[in-house]
């Protein structure tokens, strides 16, 4: 419905009556008889390993659907200029590339007839990567009506209709020898994909499947992922996008193995860590670098400090330890740098920010390579008319990929500038620095250099420890403290990385405490406001002690990996394992609401159902 004001459009929507014929409803991915996506992988002799195992440990785990809930909801403005046959779409998105390609496809228009502008964006966390169907509808309406059309969804619409995250269940089994060496892993995952596929819907369950062996050197694995159709909105990437899912199930299983074998949970982890790189996983990934044990050691040291300093109040306390590995980088991005009058630099990057701080990080990279002041560098993003080619901002990849493109472009610019300065200014061609202002005045047209950067995935990693206290009278969970140690490779801007770690960890805290997109047995969403879908506030956040390990990635000139998702990946299994520890080894799936934990404590039969 398009109207002259939002209020009128909402009034007119009330006049629309839709007759639905109810069909049998499917809300559980295990109960679905239709797979929209399947993926499986086997490497090594899994059956023989399980047959020869001294101990087989099995677990059944589930993560509910979550909602990314960026503070700015989705929205778009579309305007068509018939004189030049140009459709311009301003949208709240993670980048320009995917909206451009997808709108061209949906509207059957050439990309050159569409301009996508992504201005300041109020958060996304994966949920604004693929173009929303609503944006395509807004664009189609603008084309048909010949007038600009604007759409800003309200919070109800965001909670009900935007793609949701997680929604995965798994049966996982681990075969161990008598000494506690992991021999093989079997995993069967069911992902709740919803009613239809958005372009990114199958990505998180695939990522979960590939990362299911985590930080451990497990020689054989058999993994099956079923992406099942259910009668809900589609799922898609939400911060971590499959990485927390894999880490949660694997780390819970490793704790179960420690309890069943009597081997200390840290010793069991230490015994099985991947120690040689590059490491090829049985699921087909190649870990480029890392030092998982150093992350673990640092996390344990910080945990000992936290335990000394911060009291845990409550009679039922528990500690959880978890490691994670995160797929980052990959594919390509590009950059263009132009020398401007006065020795200033204009850099166009293919990767646009929505809160990560690309401008300062990228300026730092260029400043260091060009031996130029930070103030002399200006970044531009987010306009398909000027952005160089790229894929987008997602998957903790911007520094490793777009940052490397800027580094390569800057190196090329410096090399050409030295030669030009020698010619035009009589400068020493061997000089490390260039008089940029003088050179800018001497070259015409302006000096301009582009670069594209491509590489395989880099793998970040980390170790987290959580301490929790449960109130047996009410079931209320308190996270007393959290330790976060991340290895995101070489860091460009530690303050921004720290912000990413804390922000991600607090999203995991919300996932543990309250967050769940609840659907009833008829498939109706029951979490239609921020009262029902409850986000963590400043008052719930415990002390978080952070530490960093920096093993440079050999895959790019910066040694960078990725930092955007580690907090959301590592904190979830650490807190979940701490809750299980507090419950005497009974594992419960998040969110750990007071009602759920009270029932586990007071109705022992509920433990298996939760």
């Amino acid at each position: 419905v398009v109207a002259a004001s939002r209020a009128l459009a909402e009034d007119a929507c009330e006049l629309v009556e839709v007759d639905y014929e109810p069909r049998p409803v499917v809300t559980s991915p295990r109960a679905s008889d239709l797979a929209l996506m399947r993926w499986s992988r086997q490497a090594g002799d899994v059956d023989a390993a399980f047959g020869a195992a001294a101990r087989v440990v099995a677990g059944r785990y589930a993560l509910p659907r979550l909602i990314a809930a960026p503070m700015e909801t989705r929205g778009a403005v579309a305007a068509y200029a018939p004189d030049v046959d140009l459709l311009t779409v301003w949208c709240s998105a993670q980048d320009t590339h995917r909206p451009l390609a997808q709108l061209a496809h949906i509207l059957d228009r050439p990309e050159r007839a569409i301009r996508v502008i992504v201005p300041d964006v109020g958060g996304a966390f994966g949920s604004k990567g693929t173009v929303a169907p609503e944006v395509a509808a807004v664009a189609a309406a603008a084309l048909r009506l010949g007038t600009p059309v604007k759409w800003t969804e309200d919070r109800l619409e965001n909670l009900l209709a935007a793609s949701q995250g997680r929604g995965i269940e798994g049966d996982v089994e681990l075969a161990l020898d008598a000494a506690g060496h992991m021999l093989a892993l079997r995993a069967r995952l069911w992902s709740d994909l919803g009613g239809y596929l958005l372009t990114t819907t199958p990505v998180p369950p695939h990522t979960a499947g590939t990362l299911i062996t985590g930080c451990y050197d497990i020689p054989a694995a058999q993994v099956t992922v079923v992406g099942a159709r259910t009668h809900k909105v589609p799922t898609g990437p939400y911060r971590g996008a499959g990485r927390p899912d894999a880490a949660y199930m694997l780390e819970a299983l490793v704790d179960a193995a420690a309890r069943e074998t009597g081997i200390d949970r840290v010793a069991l982890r230490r015994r099985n860590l991947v120690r040689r790189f590059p490491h090829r996983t049985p699921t087909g990934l190649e870990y480029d670098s890392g030092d998982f044990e150093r992350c673990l050691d640092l996390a344990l040291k910080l945990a000992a400090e936290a335990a000394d300093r911060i009291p845990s109040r409550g009679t039922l306390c528990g500690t959880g330890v978890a490691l994670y590995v995160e797929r980052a980088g990959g594919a390509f991005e590009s950059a263009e740098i132009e020398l401007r009058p006065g020795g200033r630099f204009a850099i166009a990057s293919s990767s646009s920010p929505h809160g990560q701080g690309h401008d300062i990080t990228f300026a730092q990279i260029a400043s260091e390579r060009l031996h130029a002041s930070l103030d002399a560098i200006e970044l531009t993003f987010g306009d398909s008319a000027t952005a160089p080619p790229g894929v987008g901002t997602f998957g903790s990849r911007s520094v490793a990929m777009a940052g490397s493109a800027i580094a390569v472009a800057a190196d090329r610019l410096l090399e050409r500038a030295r030669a030009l300065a020698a010619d035009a200014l009589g400068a020493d061609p061997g000089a490390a620095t260039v008089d940029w202002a003088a050179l800018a005045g001497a070259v015409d047209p302006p000096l301009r250099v582009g670069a594209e950067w491509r590489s395989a995935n880099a793998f970040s990693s980390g170790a987290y420890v959580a301490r929790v206290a449960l109130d047996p009278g009410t079931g209320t969970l308190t996270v007393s403290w959290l330790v976060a140690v991340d290895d995101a490779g070489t860091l460009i801007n530690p303050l921004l990385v720290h912000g990413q770690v804390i922000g991600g960890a607090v999203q995991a805290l919300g996932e543990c405490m309250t967050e769940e997109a609840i659907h009833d047995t008829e498939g109706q969403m029951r979490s239609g406001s921020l009262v029902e879908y409850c986000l963590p506030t400043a008052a719930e956040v415990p002390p978080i002690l952070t530490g960093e390990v920096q093993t440079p990635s050999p895959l790019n000139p910066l040694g960078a990996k990725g930092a955007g998702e580690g907090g959301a990946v590592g904190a979830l299994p650490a807190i979940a394992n701490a809750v299980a520890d507090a419950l005497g080894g009974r594992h419960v799936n998040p969110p750990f609401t007071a009602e759920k934990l009270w029932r586990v404590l007071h109705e022992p039969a509920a433990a298996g159902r939760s």
Partner: protein
Amino acid sequence: MRVSIQINGRLYAGEVEARTLLSDFIRHQAGLTGTHVGCEHGVCGACTVQLEGEPVRSCLMLAVQAGGRSLQTVESLAGPGGELTALQRAFTEHHALQCGFCTAGFLMTADALLRDRADGEELTEAEVRAELAGNLCRCTGYEGIVAAVMAARGDYADGVATPSPADSGA
């Protein structure tokens, strides 16, 4: 209906429907888009403004309810040349914003809190966290926001925090 509201010392008058929210009046009629709208049901706090000095959620008020009254939006904080206040500078220094969508609401809540407590007893971190619990941030995990508010306490000690021209453009 005709309504006139004093916003940041200037009178804005216009025709509104009875159902027009104060947040929509501020953004669409007064054109002050620094106030952001995050949920329209009073939970996220992004739309917080100060009505006669008290923080209120402008999405939970109708424009007509604010008729004849005086309110301050985030635009009132910085000086005429864009000079940031001590609180705003502290937000920058402590990495208290990432996407920035919630920031206006946090600034208006924190500014009211710090004014209220300027000559009272010391604010603790736990109190700041409790006082900010009515505003949601999805990016930062609140660490930088709490640190910024703690850091800005001293600048309100004399009762008024004024923009510092020396820091313009910082």
